[in-house]
């Protein structure tokens, strides 16, 4: 078993593995006895190679690797009812929001600046604020410049699909392995309720005609990507009463056309954002409604459940945004790429993740031996590395796992307002945390005070620091076994 991650503490301001080494425990057996089952999903090894360092395409990778987006593609060819280009704000985190738009040269400077400081960086994405395939000149220039400097960075784009068929050949040429298409409908009558207009073939189209064109272009773009072996993730915005039921149909269509992953995201709707939906009072779904729909989609295209709906200029691990540390004015005028931090980090992660996967497969065994038909919803406070290593009061989000006879699976995350600020606990935000954790049976964290623990208990949620610094799955496996009768297996610590 490898030693805890001491060697990484020296690496810049990374917050990933900064647990106290003395307390760090690790589950799992010697790696030699666990064999190839240590891979997180049974998939073809070529696919695993493509996704293993991509935090958005692999739930496992999101514990270790970071992405950054550069906002070089502001122009868009579609109006969506959930988007408003006019208002954005640095304090907001939602898709399409950016604080600065970059030229390809500025983007290159930023990518190098981040790569030198954030060892977890593995992916560069272009996700707007407009459409990366429509604003193609900027997208292409950025990718070409970055790939020349940092050869091992993965390039990916996000698009609405309208201009995608025209760009597939060039995407393949530039080794863009990962494409995300936002597909909210396959029935143009539903599309007409989501898209007021599109700009295509030098004119504006509206209504069902617009949605029909968009639908046909999206499907042909997806088929072309699949034919070239480019992995495709489908993003769908869940809009209650508009396309929520319809997304089951969307899931079938995209699966048939080879989509690798389907990410159903909740509509973000706030009058202050000035979007059509925000102003017309269209509500977004609740966490449990989203989970219910995702559960119904199981068995179709594989679901992504760890999406954070990040900003179009986000930097860092999913769930954290360090974008404000890397604005242009904070970057040196001249930057030279230094590969050393990223290389060191990769070597350490290779060891750590083998260990964690072994721990995970053992934890699965514990859940199965418990022999109970029940399920347990567990919220975890973590700052990365797959461990329970965050204090309850410091958590800005909880990762939610479900343990059941089927195994241990990640079901999503719940964002909360940080309860403990600068040593002072805020009572009001604790109420918010408790209501956000609705439906959760137990909270696992590195530390928690008596007061919040008691308050949670009043709200029907237990909390414990007993598994602090353990691997998440190890802790949940032991917890499940303890909860439902059977004795925990010996090798937990």
């Amino acid at each position, binding site marked *: 078993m490898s030693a805890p991650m001491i060697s990484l503490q020296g690496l810049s301001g990374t917050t990933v593995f900064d647990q106290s080494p003395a307390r760090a425990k690790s589950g799992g057996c010697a790696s030699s006895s666990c064999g190839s089952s240590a891979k997180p999903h049974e998939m073809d090894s070529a696919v695993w190679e493509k996704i293993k360092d991509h935090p958005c395409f692999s739930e496992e990778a999101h514990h270790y690797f970071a992405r950054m987006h550069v906002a070089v593609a*502001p*122009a*868009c*060819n579609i*109006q969506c009812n959930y988007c408003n*280009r*006019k208002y954005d704000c640095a304090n907001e985190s939602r898709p399409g929001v950016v604080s600065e*738009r970059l030229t390809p040269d500025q983007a290159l400077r930023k990518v190098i600046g981040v790569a030198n400081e954030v060892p977890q960086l593995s992916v560069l994405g272009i996700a707007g*604020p*407009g459409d990366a395939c*429509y*604003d193609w*000149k900027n997208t292409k220039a950025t990718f070409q410049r970055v790939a020349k400097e940092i050869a091992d960075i993965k390039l990916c784009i996000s698009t609405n699909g309208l201009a995608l068929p025209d760009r597939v050949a060039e995407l393949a040429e530039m080794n863009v392995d990962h494409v995300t298409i936002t597909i909210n409908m396959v029935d143009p009558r539903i599309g007409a309720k989501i898209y007021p207009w599109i*700009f295509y073939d*030098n*004119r*504006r189209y509206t209504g069902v005609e617009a949605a029909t064109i968009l639908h046909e272009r999206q499907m042909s773009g997806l088929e072309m990507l699949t034919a070239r072996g480019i992995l495709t993730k489908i993003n769908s915005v869940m809009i209650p009463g508009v396309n929520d039921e319809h997304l089951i149909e969307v899931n079938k269509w995209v699966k048939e056309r080879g989509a690798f992953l389907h990410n159903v995201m909740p509509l973000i709707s706030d009058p202050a954002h000035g979007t059509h939906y925000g102003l017309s009072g269209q509500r977004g779904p609740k966490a449990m409604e989203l989970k219910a729909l995702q559960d119904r989609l199981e068995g179709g295209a594989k679901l992504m459940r760890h999406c954070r709906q990040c900003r179009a200029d986000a930097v860092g691990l999913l769930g954290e945004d360090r974008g404000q540390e890397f604005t242009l004015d904070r970057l040196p005028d001249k930057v030279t790429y230094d590969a050393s931090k990223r290389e060191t980090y990769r070597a350490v992660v290779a060891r750590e993740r083998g260990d964690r996967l072994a721990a995970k497969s053992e934890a699965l065994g514990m859940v199965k031996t418990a022999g109970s038909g029940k399920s347990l919803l567990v919220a975890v406070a973590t700052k990365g590395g797959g461990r329970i290593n965050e204090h309850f009061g410091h958590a800005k989000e909880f990762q939610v796992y479900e343990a059941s006879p089927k195994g241990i699976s990640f079901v999503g995350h719940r964002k909360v307002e940080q309860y403990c600020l600068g040593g002072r606990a805020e009572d009001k935000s604790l109420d918010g945390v408790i209501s956000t954790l609705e439906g959760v049976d137990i909270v696992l964290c590195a530390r928690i005070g008596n007061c919040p623990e008691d308050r949670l208990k009043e709200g029907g949620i237990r909390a414990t620091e007993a598994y602090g610094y353990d691997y998440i799955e190890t802790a949940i496996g032991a917890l499940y076994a303890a909860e439902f009768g059977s004795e925990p297996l010996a090798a937990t610590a």
Partner: protein
Amino acid sequence: MAFKIIASQCTQCGACEFECPSGAIKFKGETYVIDPKKCTECEGTFETQQCASVCPVSKTCVPA
């Protein structure tokens, strides 16, 4: 015979710049501006004014 951009409404997305068939739109200072000498209102090239068609904000690219 020219169009103009209402600067206070413009989000500076730049879509108009690369759709303009006459190269009449440039980013100047804080906003995009249309050079009235170059703007043809797309007459003879397209049936609709490209800047107004692609502009995501309504009533922003308008007749001058």
